[in-house]
């Protein structure tokens, strides 16, 4: 039996549930907003397996399950009252902590991959594990240095925030130069622009599922109906690097983003997401990703 912790309103969570159902694997879903509103939690830190979640007359002891599928998405901000927001945030923090230590297979322990919060360190450290190139990058508070970097990029440069807060990558153009003095008070991440298609590789344990995305815009996620999505067999050395990455990050599921430089065919690593929204890719892949997730969870 698989315990599934997530939000019914999260399409990625429900895609995982559908994958389990299609595979005929028994599971017990727990809707975290409902748990925050009317459920009970009891977490004895000296015995994580004895953690009990109770909701609607049913109690679930973590140690009684074979594995846990969880997506602890941030929901407190949408709570209708401050009390519920606090309950949700407290519950999420407590569950995230204990899921690090339960003696079960967990996909994914929520706190494992921390470096995604700071993009430059993330790219350097994880690129090293994969053995991949990364875009030439400059993080600076110095306007002249930024301008020198941008001018040195043969195919142009993009800029974006360095944190995990959502920012859209933007092509650096001459009008942006007048804003560079602001860097002194808040540095910005500049990168060489890699011209070529995007690739998303979903890694489940040691299996990789690739998709090539050709888009007329800089960030394919910003548009609908104009991107060209094609399945892609992941080259062996890339797949091996992805498997090393799941081992290094100690998470079984990653969404790994690359660009393929059109002029050279070089794969360039962008980032790896330990809570990937895989449902669209899964649908186009005929359910292969969710099938692999279900199989990994069932191999208890």
């Amino acid at each position, binding site marked *: 039996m698989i315990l599934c912790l997530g939000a019914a309103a999260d399409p990625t969570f429900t895609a995982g549930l559908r994958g389990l159902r299609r595979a005929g694997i028994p599971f017990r879903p727990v809707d975290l907003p409902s748990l925050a509103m009317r459920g009970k939690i009891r977490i004895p830190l000296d015995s994580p397996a004895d953690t009990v979640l109770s909701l609607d007359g049913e109690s679930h002891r973590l140690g009684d399950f074979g594995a846990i599928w969880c997506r602890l998405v941030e929901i407190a901000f949408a709570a209708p009252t401050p009390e519920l927001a*606090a309950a949700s945030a407290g519950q999420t923090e407590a569950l995230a*902590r*204990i899921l690090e230590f339960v003696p079960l297979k967990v996909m994914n322990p929520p706190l494992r991959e921390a470096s995604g919060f700071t993009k430059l*360190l993330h790219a350097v450290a994880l690129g090293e594990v994969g053995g991949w190139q*990364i875009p*030439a990058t400059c993080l600076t*508070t110095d306007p002249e240095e930024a301008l020198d970097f941008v001018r040195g990029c043969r195919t142009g440069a993009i800029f974006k925030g360095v944190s995990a*807060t959502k920012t859209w990558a933007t092509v650096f153009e001459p009008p942006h130069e007048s804003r560079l003095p602001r860097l002194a008070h808040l*540095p910005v991440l500049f990168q060489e622009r890699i011209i070529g298609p995007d690739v998303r590789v979903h890694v489940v344990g040691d299996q990789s599922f690739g998709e090539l995305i050709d888009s007329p815009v800089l960030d394919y996620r910003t548009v609908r109906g104009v991107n060209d999505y094609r399945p892609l067999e992941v080259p062996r050395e890339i797949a091996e690097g992805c498997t090393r990455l799941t081992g290094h990050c100690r998470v079984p599921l990653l969404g790994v983003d690359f660009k393929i430089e059109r002029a050279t065919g070089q794969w360039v690593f962008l980032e790896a997401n330990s809570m990937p929204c895989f449902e669209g890719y899964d649908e186009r892949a005929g359910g292969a990703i969710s099938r692999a997730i279900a199989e990994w969870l069932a191999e208890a």
Partner: protein
Amino acid sequence: MTLLVIAPGSDETAVRFAGFALRQGVPAVVSAGFGRVGVSVHATRDRACSTRLTLDGAEVSGVLNRGVGDWGEESDPDRSFAAAETYAAFWSAVALWPGPVVNRPSERGFFARLDPLEQAGTGLVEPPRTVVLNDGSAPGNDVYRIPEWTAMAPEAPRSRFDVVQIADRDPARSHRFVVAGAGVFDVGAAGGEPSGKTADLVAPIAGWLRRRGMGFADFTVEFEAEVVRLTDVSCWPSHHLFPHLEDRIYTALLSELTP
């Protein structure tokens, strides 16, 4: 030679350390933002990094990391964004900077997550007697509301929406230690030196903290016969914890930062 102490100006311990360093002839500046502080990190396609940290344009020679403050509480979206970016920029830059850093950020976090349960998993210490719940009760008088970690009176009425951590601690058996550079200080002992047996018992914990890059941290243990129960770990030791050992602890930190 100038030290950068990454901390908000309200961090008294950071300010006191900077004052101590200055009295020893080592200029040190406390800052949690950019302006006087500058960063520059270049990474090549092959991930070779060159990193500079500057203060008023001059190279910094060492960094004590105490964090940039509680940026998660900022309600204004623009300020919140700027705070998150500042945090992430310091994180990458100081992690990749080759100079001496006490409490260096890493892949594991701006500060590495230090959970007593992890150390308990090695079998060298026992875990805390602690329960997290939102209903009912548990033994213990040490009650905190999560996620804001505000202390509550054990007998205070609680709503069913209160998620609390209740720890059953024995103050008579509790001992608190500070790791500072190469030193481990027993803050309950007059001279700060752990006795031989005590030093042996807490050495694995100090070693674990140092392996995580934490050269300035404190932890609390309870000794029960031969059992060591690790009840708490923190990356933010406060000077209130070690008033009689302040100079020794700051000396140990300074030694790490001015090799």
